[in-house]
């Protein structure tokens, strides 16, 4: 059972607009995500009545209140668990989990890895601002080590999670990374996430203007972004840089950054991105790349095929219904060991 589709172009962003005040701070990256998703939804070919947004708790999780769709603002960390029920109950729905780094990497870590492991066909949009915003500035599981926050006055002493690593570790079939300052890239990636069959995780590097302003500046800054990001495209060699002359290759099974034209390096030497590779070793290496040695990987890192939980569940239900002799509850109640006690026998 798959999502039913309608002609694209029959809906516009107006169909998802809600007459309400959006209460995120001015300058928060979440505004960009809202706008991009409103723009992307009409292009997914999904009926507007079939779109469901489920969220947990945190700034990110106010999202369902700001878009005209079915929405469920749930409990801290539990959006993935609730979405698992929504989607399994009705595979026809297009289900989106709107979550943050505190919501999904800390309190909801268990549900995050298990929805991915099951490969339930939902889209998880992970607003990663590397801070607890709604509770006003405590460190999160993705806060860079050493950061000074309200609960780490001497700097954090914890190693941060990489959402991509967790996704791969849970056998994720789709992982992408975008920045809040590039709406074109975000829309392109979100449409790919929506089209993917299975759990899609899109990490949005998102700026919190109040509590972690410029936390991603070394990646997203106008002056550095071309050299510090690589936008991965399936089937294309891994090239980046302002001059488009840098690339990534394997050297003795280790990735390294090289310059095209130096030491005899040509495009031919570079890794051609294969997002669909069932083997996730390269994808794993890609999500771990970080400054200063490497650019940060953007775009769809992994988009591999696997079985989808609710489809298999639905197939098993159909198969069971086809095969059974017990069509109704009455049949069930009368199956197996039953005993008729008659009046005559009880007369002594």
């Amino acid at each position, binding site marked *: 059972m798959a999502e039913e589709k309608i002609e694209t172009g029959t809906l516009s962003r107006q169909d998802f607009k809600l007459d309400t005040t959006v209460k995120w701070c001015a300058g928060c990256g979440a505004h960009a995500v809202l706008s991009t998703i409103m723009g992307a939804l009409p292009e997914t070919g999904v009926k507007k009545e079939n779109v469901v947004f489920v969220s947990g708790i945190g700034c990110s999780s106010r999202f369902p209140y700001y878009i005209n769709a079915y929405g469920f603002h749930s409990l801290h960390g539990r959006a993935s668990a609730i979405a698992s029920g929504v989607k399994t109950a009705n595979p026809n729905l297009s289900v989106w989990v709107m979550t943050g780094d505190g919501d999904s990497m800390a309190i909801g870590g268990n549900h995050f890895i*298990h929805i991915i492991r099951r490969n339930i066909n939902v889209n998880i949009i992970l607003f990663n601002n590397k801070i607890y915003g709604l509770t006003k500035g405590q460190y999160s599981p993705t806060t860079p080590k050493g950061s000074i926050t309200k609960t780490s006055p001497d700097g954090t002493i914890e190693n941060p999670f990489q959402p991509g690593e967790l996704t791969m570790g849970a056998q994720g079939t789709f992982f992408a990374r975008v920045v809040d300052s590039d709406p074109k890239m975000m829309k392109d990636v979100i449409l790919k996430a929506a089209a993917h069959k299975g759990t899609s995780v899109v990490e949005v590097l998102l700026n919190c203007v109040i509590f972690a302003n410029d936390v991603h500046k070394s990646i997203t800054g106008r002056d550095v972004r071309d050299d510090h990001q690589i936008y991965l495209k399936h089937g294309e060699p891994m090239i980046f840089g302002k001059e488009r002359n840098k690339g990534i290759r394997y050297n003795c099974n280790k990735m390294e950054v090289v310059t095209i034209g130096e030491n005899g390096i040509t495009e031919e030497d570079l890794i051609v991105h294969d997002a669909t590779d069932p083997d996730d070793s390269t994808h794993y290496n890609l999500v771990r790349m970080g400054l200063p040695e490497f650019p940060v990987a953007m775009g769809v890192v992994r988009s591999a095929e696997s079985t989808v939980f609710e489809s298999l569940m639905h197939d098993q239900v159909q*198969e069971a219904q086809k095969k059974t002799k017990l069509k109704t509850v009455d049949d069930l109640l009368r199956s197996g060991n039953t005993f008729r006690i008659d009046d005559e026998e*009880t007369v002594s």
Partner: protein
Amino acid sequence: MGKNPKIVQREDVVVKFAGDSGDGMQLTGSQFSDTSAFVGNDLSTFPDYPSEIRAPQGTVAGVSGFQVHIGHKEVTTPGDQADVLVAMNPAALKANMKWIKPGATVIIDIDNFDNKHYKKAGYEEDPLHDDSLDGYNVVKAPITNLTRDTAKQFGLDQKTADKTRNQFVAGMLYWLFNRDIKLGEDFLKDKFRTKENLVKANMAVLHAGYNYAETIEALSTTFLVDPVKNKKGLFRNMTGNLATAWGLLAAAEKAGLKLFLGSYPITPATEILQEIAKRKHLGAVAFQAEDEIAGICSAIGASFSGRLAVTTTSGPGLALKSEAIGLAVITELPLVIVNVQRGGPSTGLPTKTEQSDLMQALYGRNGESPAIVIAASTPANCFDFAYTAAKLSVEHMTPVILLTDSYLANGSELWNIPSTKDLPDITPPLVADNDEKYQPYLRDQEKMNRFWAIPGQEGLRHRVGGLEKEDVTGTVSHDPMNHQVMVINRQKKVEKVADYIPDQEIIGEKTGDLLVIGWGGTYGGLVSAVTDLQKAGMSISLVQFNYIHPLPKNTEQVFAGFNKRIVCEINMGQFAYHLRSKFQQFEFLQHNKVQGLPFFIAELKEKFIEILEGNHQ
């Protein structure tokens, strides 16, 4: 080589099977129960097993038991004490000596009664040669050796052969109870199906046991328990957990909804999850979640998606689910939470029974968070109350907590199979597509429920969530007066359920000296004790509550009819406390027991007589 045994007709007999947890005593117990049901006996069963899967062999801690009470008369409990005890080893004998009647028949596997086993069981002296078994009819049967001899011809290794010892026991019991051995054969054919050699070996051992019993002198008396009086129709032997699962399936079918169970394995509730997992053919989905929280959250998601949503658990799991129950309360989505209670706190006594989660069910959530709480009172009526839980939840758009317990869940009784056409209708308050009047928190004027608009429906897009919502419109609201309105609305909605549940029934006279008050799974013991005393001419009545919150509307009137009231519970007095808070004009005495065991009829009678006699002074 036959003999002509004396046949004794009995109104009822209690049989206890006891052995190591790997000895197959649960299986033999079930086999004997099914056979008894087949010949028309009323019955009640109770398995009693350790929480370890295979506790150290031969130790008292490792003893697994199964008690069956069969009757020509109606039976309501598995019985206080056994007429027949099967003890596969000294530990099984030691553990059960205090649970057998004077003069009981005690069948032991003499092959296991040696010094090594005595030591493991903690016997200091040989119980067969001191006076501890004086007055009992002890049958020293070489069960192990005779089983091995019989099983040899089928090429079974010793370990596998020993696993068929329970069939030797079964064979002996078929003879002892004048049962047709073909019933035992049919059970084995069904049990082992395709494993032909195992069927043959087990059948041969079954016959060996039967023939042995017929031959020996020690068994000179056999029992005959006639079919039960006043029962007719189609019956089956039903455990509480199975009844719960089937009640939920019946409710889903009747409501025209598909069943979704989000659950996590936990003793003693797991069988419900296992049963629903087998029922895909009825369109049911069992989602085995990663934890208790995901169990309930997936169910809440499924409820939002328009399924009949259920989560099943036991006490520790209910604790983990409490935040999510609050979410179902505030989103006003239907959800059934089945809590099969066990001994607590914490991990407590996982395989033993207790009624100690009542307070947790009633009050264990943050905020003003009312939920309907109901309780089943017999293994078979778990079907009715699971059905009722679903009906109330769907029709009133609110979570319902159904309390059962380990005693009901694993115990069984004869169940008169109903027809689903006779079950009450279930009408979900659905909304038509594009209903322009729809608003998320617009309420039904009678029941106060909101309406159920489901994702996928046209023209009904809306948002729910854990933040307080504005009355009617459902937009997020922090307005102080609105919060008070919504808190009161949710409370009134639950209180109004009292208009839709039956009055509290009284067993016995409506007025008198003593009213015994119970709730949930203690029914069997209480009703037996109270009716016995009524027959003896005492002024005593019983009310067994199934509806805990809200209480039936006539509750106050019922209490007013008696001079004294005693609340009997398998906890330290949680229902008594609840009743005192509701009815401050009455005094409530208490009888409480927290031993992981159900009430025994004798102890209850003793307590009630003490109070009644005090009354006469």
